[in-house]
């Protein structure tokens, strides 16, 4: 399975010269907790709702501060056509909860730990179903015919 097929939510990007107040408004309107910070179509960082709390509100930063002051950069990225197992490896080695998905160095979306957990849970349910059925409704094997 490719990374692009594992994305479950739309991505939203904000220009790096926008303010932290605008970033917060966009998060609220779009329902996402992380925005890609873009310079044109070039990805320069990620800003999360947690960044806005920790690096802006808690530091008494003015609401009109530029969003690139509080973003996380550089960003851990993964190619859209990479195998999904590479995403697992990047989550493990970088300790992040989101990866920016890029194609030809352009941002195309975001994949999160939550996305992968949903897939893993669904896969587990699929393989557990026949086992569960066997436990609840045991099928007795037909007796082996006796030799005549």
């Amino acid at each position, binding site marked *: 399975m490719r990374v692009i097929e594992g994305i*479950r*939510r*739309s991505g939203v*990007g904000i220009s790096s010269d926008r303010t932290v107040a605008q970033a917060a*408004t966009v998060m609220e*309107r*779009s*329902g996402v907790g992380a925005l890609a910070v873009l310079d044109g*179509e070039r990805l320069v960082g990620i800003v999360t709702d947690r960044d806005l709390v920790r690096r802006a509100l808690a530091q008494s930063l003015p609401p009109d501060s530029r969003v690139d002051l509080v973003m996380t950069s550089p960003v851990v990225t993964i190619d859209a056509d990479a195998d999904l197992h590479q995403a697992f490896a990047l989550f493990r080695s970088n300790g992040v909860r989101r990866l920016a998905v890029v194609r030809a160095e352009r941002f195309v*979306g975001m994949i999160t730990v939550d996305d992968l957990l949903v897939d893993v849970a669904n896969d587990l349910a699929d393989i557990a179903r026949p086992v569960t059925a066997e436990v609840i409704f045991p099928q007795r094997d037909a007796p082996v015919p006796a030799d005549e």
Partner: protein
Amino acid sequence: MRASVGDRIVIRGHRVGEHDRDCKVVGVEHPDGEPPYLVRWEDSDHETLFFPGPDAIVEHFEKKTKKAKG
């Protein structure tokens, strides 16, 4: 996915009780209509780039042309 200026994009709620969101396409970066799209969010003047995922659907609005009288 393809969209044109004036189309509406609806993003379905992800959890039970979460309402749908929508935005209006105000710019298309690529001439073939492929993402990303410059969008304006409902009740907001804020424009952002939007990279649609499987939770988004595009509602196209056909352009109505007035018939000439006479």
